[in-house]
């Protein structure tokens, strides 16, 4: 039972982070269009880290919560160290609250995506070690026969430990005192860290595909493992396409270019299975499975964009523009958030002992609005990236460039608002369920206390 409680607790902080993170994203979006908005009270320098940190916590905490929930089902035994699980939860909650306090008070380490003080990153590493120990002790994976999701989860946890450690290397002079090394290693750490959370999310997805269809070949075939190892190779080497403009060794760029082009194989596989999965009517399938199929469309779009911007000739025009942001948004919202909703809805339906085929009308509508608004949001970012690149080629000044981009920013901000509301509506049934879990827990504690008081009184009377 402790696995469920730990899993639900992580899901609570995941959904809370998502909603608060979206709120700060909305403020940040407004600041793009109205630069004066809260400029002194809550500058973009604070809203951006608050937004980015909380939405990335949404991704990792939701994946972690689902893995804790799935773990005993995978292993056929209870969680080996429940105390470590709770410790991991307490640590994560502390990290989120402390980081928010630091961001609000303007106490930064000033590193991209890791703006909190260094020791917070240290605590994050401890948290991942605790989870990895618990995972190995509970699942006791026999890797030569283990299904692909066990490999994915293990790789995700191990690479979180490695990449967070790498992101701290700048505190050593050898890295800090050389801008080329500092920037290259930072891109290396951050690029691979994205790969690490993808591993956790894809692990949950392949597990769900197996659970909702019962097809073993989806998680154990040679082709599945081929694509897993291709993903792992990309996690380790693909980050280099961010460093084409950095004057590091050309070998780093060449390795990255070759590796990033292997993504063409994934693209080819997706196109060949298009007819099989994309066009089928799967209204009789589990909602989670339908969400996975929906994420496939975003994988296709985003992968195509990733391959295009990985070509060095194109990259020199797109790097440092909103096209990179479009890629990041397509990956984190279109792919990861859809897949995480698929995992969270699986937990939701399982707990409700429902087949997962009936979906409330409002959720269906919200899902449609989610996809349309995200597409508009994504296209607006790409368009503003193209416009920025064009304006820079004409040697326009920065403020003139920003003026040219204003219509795109308006579309990006408005579609962002709609997207935020769609996500909140989609999350509503799960949040309601989690809230009920918290209330029940509170009720249980009250009942236990009352019982203790009664027993004490009875003993006194005796």
């Amino acid at each position, binding site marked *: 039972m402790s696995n469920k409680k730990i899993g639900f607790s992580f899901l609570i902080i995941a959904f809370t982070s998502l909603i608060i993170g979206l709120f700060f994203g909305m403020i940040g979006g407004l600041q793009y269009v109205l630069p004066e908005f809260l400029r002194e009270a809550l500058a973009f320098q604070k809203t951006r880290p608050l937004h980015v940190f909380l939405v990335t916590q949404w991704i990792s905490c939701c994946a972690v919560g689902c893995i804790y929930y799935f773990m005993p089902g995978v292993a056929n035994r209870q969680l080996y160290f429940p105390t470590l699980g709770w410790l991991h939860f307490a640590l994560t909650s502390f990290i989120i609250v402390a980081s928010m306090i630091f961001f609000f008070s303007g106490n930064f380490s000033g590193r991209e995506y890791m703006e909190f003080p260094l020791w917070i990153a240290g605590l994050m590493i401890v948290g991942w070690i605790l989870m990895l120990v618990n995972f190995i002790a509970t699942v006791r994976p026999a890797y030569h026969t283990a299904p692909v999701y066990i490999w994915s989860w293990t790789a995700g946890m191990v690479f979180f430990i490695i990449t967070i450690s790498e992101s701290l290397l700048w505190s050593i002079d050898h890295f800090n005192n050389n*801008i080329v090394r500092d*920037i290259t290693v930072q891109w290396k750490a951050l690029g691979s860290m994205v790969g690490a959370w993808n591993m956790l999310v894809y692990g949950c997805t392949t597990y769900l595909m197996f659970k909702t269809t019962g097809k073993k070949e989806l998680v154990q075939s040679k082709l599945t493992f081929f694509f897993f190892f291709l993903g792992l190779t990309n996690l380790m080497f693909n980050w280099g396409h961010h460093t084409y403009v950095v004057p590091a060794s050309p070998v780093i760029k060449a390795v990255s270019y070759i590796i990033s082009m292997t993504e063409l194989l994934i693209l080819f596989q997706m196109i060949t299975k298009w007819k099989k999965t994309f066009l089928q009517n799967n209204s009789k399938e589990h909602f989670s499975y339908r969400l996975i199929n929906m994420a496939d469309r975003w994988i296709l779009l985003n992968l195509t964009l990733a391959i295009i911007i990985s070509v060095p000739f194109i990259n*020199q025009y797109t790097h440092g523009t909103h096209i990179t942001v479009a890629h990041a948004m397509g990956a984190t919202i279109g792919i990861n958030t859809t897949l995480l909703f698929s995992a969270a809805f699986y937990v939701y339906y399982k707990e409700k002992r429902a087949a997962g085929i009936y979906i409330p009308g409002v959720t269906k509508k919200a899902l449609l609005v989610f996809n349309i608004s995200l597409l508009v949001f994504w296209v607006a970012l790409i368009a503003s990236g193209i416009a920025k690149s064009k304006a820079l080629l004409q040697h326009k000044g920065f403020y003139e460039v920003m003026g040219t981009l204003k219509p795109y920013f308006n579309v990006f901000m408005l579609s962002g608002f709609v997207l935020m509301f769609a996500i909140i509506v989609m999350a509503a049934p799960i949040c309601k369920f989690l809230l009920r879990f918290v209330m029940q827990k509170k009720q249980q504690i009250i009942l236990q206390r009352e019982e203790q008081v009664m027993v004490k009184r009875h003993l006194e009377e005796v």
Partner: protein
Amino acid sequence: VYSAWVFTKGTDKPELKFTGEMAKGKALWHKNNCISCHQLYGLGGYLGSDLTNVMSDEKRGRQYAESFLKSGGPRMPDFKFNDKEISQIMAYLSYVDSSAKPSMP
């Protein structure tokens, strides 16, 4: 092995000299979370301009950077840096600028 190579040979630039003044400028860059709006080599936010080559840029240059550091701008809050801090941040930006030239044609 690849990581070890990236951490050493792959990113070795012995011609770049990093002084104490630049280190203080970098610390200020970090402390004020400049990366949330500005980019260095494309890494950072897009609300402000890319500052990799701001110091040698014909249109921007030292004076442009100095005036923003002194009193902010239409999009940038006034960080109230003193003269010493401004010169330290500019020393750091000059160091970054010396590491490469812009890649966009």
